[in-house]
């Protein structure tokens, strides 16, 4: 069977790919701009042997995810920024329970109710503070409709592999825009989950999903064991895309929607004789430190572009050990920077280098 190219919205492509990846349950609560994901799931899950359930709140939805993940099925929820804040409690519990699940954040402007236009101001929340306690979740950063589909499949696989929540950190632009997409071939073989609380059937000892450890040594052992797992993930799951970075004096870096504008700016800057390149992280946790290290010997400057006042820039500086100066350009409130704005910034940096 030849793979079919179809024109779809990012949110819908993601939802379709999730069903193909074996997502059996979807729990969500209405919020813009992730709306199409829930609508697609409501329409398609019942027809394809899955469960769609609109929860009474984001808090209930993420706890339904906890239940379904405990039962051993592939499960997903989606929301946008303020809704993700409400899910934080549940995300902490799911991470502490070592349960796999997929969480979609189609980011909008914040803080507070903010706006409904695209933003990237939930970076810190996604990679550093998704809830209380010592934990991480996998964070994928698509920048096209194709990657919305591809990465949700990978998110399910990696979540199961490591027993960890995985987030797709998207934004209103990627969710709403239409592009051609080819759905990846997906194995229908699901991994065994001998730890699941799905009824022991008198064949094994009872399984327990638990996050409570009142003895300090037991809690420390639990946290440390998870920390060892994170070390493996940091070693194996870093991922980034390089574009014209080999001879670049200035490496622009940005993820998601911002990276698309950065790429256009790099092309235009090259035409103006500015040796610019692009390093695009495809995974935000674990942050692709190894990829940033590769540009340290050649890059004279790094320009970090975000739809925020500067969040990922902290990780960029750490990734290069501050051995290369890191400049910043950002827009917020749902505004997108134009390529011209970035080119202007690149020209300023270029002038300062000579």
């Amino acid at each position, binding site marked *: 069977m030849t793979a079919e190219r179809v024109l779809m919205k990012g949110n819908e492509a993601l939802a379709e790919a999730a069903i193909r990846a074996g997502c059996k349950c979807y729990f969500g609560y209405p919020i813009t701009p992730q709306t199409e994901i829930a609508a697609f799931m409501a329409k398609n899950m019942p027809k394809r042997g899955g469960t769609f359930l609109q929860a009474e709140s984001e808090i*209930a939805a993420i706890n*339904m995810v906890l*239940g*379904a993940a*405990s039962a*051993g099925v592939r*499960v997903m929820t989606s929301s946008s920024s303020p809704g993700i804040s409400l899910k934080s409690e549940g995300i902490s519990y799911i991470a502490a329970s070592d349960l796999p699940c997929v969480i979609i954040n189609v980011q909008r402007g914040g803080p507070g109710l903010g706006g409904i236009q695209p933003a990237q101001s939930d970076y810190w929340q996604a990679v550093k503070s998704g809830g209380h306690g010592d934990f991480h979740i996998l964070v994928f950063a698509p920048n096209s409709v194709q990657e919305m589909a591809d990465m949700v499949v990978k998110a399910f696989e990696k979540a199961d592999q490591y027993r960890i929540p995985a987030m797709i950190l998207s934004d209103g632009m990627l969710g709403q825009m239409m592009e051609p997409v080819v759905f990846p071939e997906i194995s229908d073989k699901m991994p065994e989950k001998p730890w699941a609380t*799905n*009824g022991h059937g*008198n064949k094994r000892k009872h399984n327990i999903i638990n996050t409570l450890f009142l003895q300090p040594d037991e809690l420390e052992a639990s946290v440390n064991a998870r920390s060892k797992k994170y070390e493996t993930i940091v070693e194996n799951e870093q991922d980034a895309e390089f574009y014209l970075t080999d001879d670049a004096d200035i490496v622009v870096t940005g993820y998601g929607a911002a990276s698309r504008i950065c790429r256009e700016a790099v092309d235009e800057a090259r035409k103006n004789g500015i040796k610019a390149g692009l390093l695009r992280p495809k995974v935000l946790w674990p942050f692709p430190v190894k990829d940033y290290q590769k540009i340290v010997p050649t890059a004279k400057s790094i320009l970090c572009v975000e739809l925020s006042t500067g969040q990922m820039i902290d990780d960029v500086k750490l990734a290069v050990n501050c051995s290369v100066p890191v400049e910043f350009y950002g827009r917020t409130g749902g505004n997108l920077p134009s390529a011209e704005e970035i080119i202007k910034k690149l020209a300023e940096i270029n002038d300062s280098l000579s």
Partner: protein
Amino acid sequence: MSVVFRKPDSMADVNTHYCPGCTHGIVHRLICEIIDEMGIEGDTIGICPVGCSVMAYDYFNCDMIEAPHGRAPAVATGVKRSLPDKFVFTYQGDGDLAAIGTAETIHAAARGENITIIFINNTTYGMTGGQMAPTTLPGQVTQTTPYGRDVEKAGYPVKMCEILAQVDGTALAQRVSVDSPKEVQIAKKAIRKAFQIQRDKKGFSIVEVLSTCPTNWGMSPVESLERLRKECIPYFPLGVYKDITAKENSND
């Protein structure tokens, strides 16, 4: 020699952390007796959220999940929607079910979620040392109502069975007590009915069990049972608030 009384198979052979005189042990035992009698230990998933029963995962031999505070009905929904043929019960206290988890409780009922809730109402937050619960009686002294619950300032107790009986998705809402052998038998029948309703896929069932907390009430176990009878039952009357199977039976 025949054995006439023993620990249920689905009850773990361990000491519990519950205080002397606490009625949690009785209710745990009733659930386990029913699980044994129905032969469903291997098909049952129990969910215990934050509260005194948070460590109940060590006391039941079926698969167990410890849930966030108040969220057990949502977690149970996730399990049940994934495994519709398994038995799913939650075991929640009054603070958990009637304060922080009110939305989860009412909406699980509204969806007619085919789960069973065992609701322990002892009019206090036991685990955290006896603060005012949503079910604390008017005038009752707790750590956070040191002058007695003043309903003008702290509001009135919440009567969950009465509220849930108004919800269309509720199949069974019954309030029982475990203060005497007779009431314990009634409680057991109610819990059994709740599990049967789940087996028959008839919807949401809740059994509220009026319970004691001698430690935080500052009373002996015997005094606590006396208080339950004299103060709690008059405010929270025992009885069946809704039972769709009774209606069906009467129509037969």
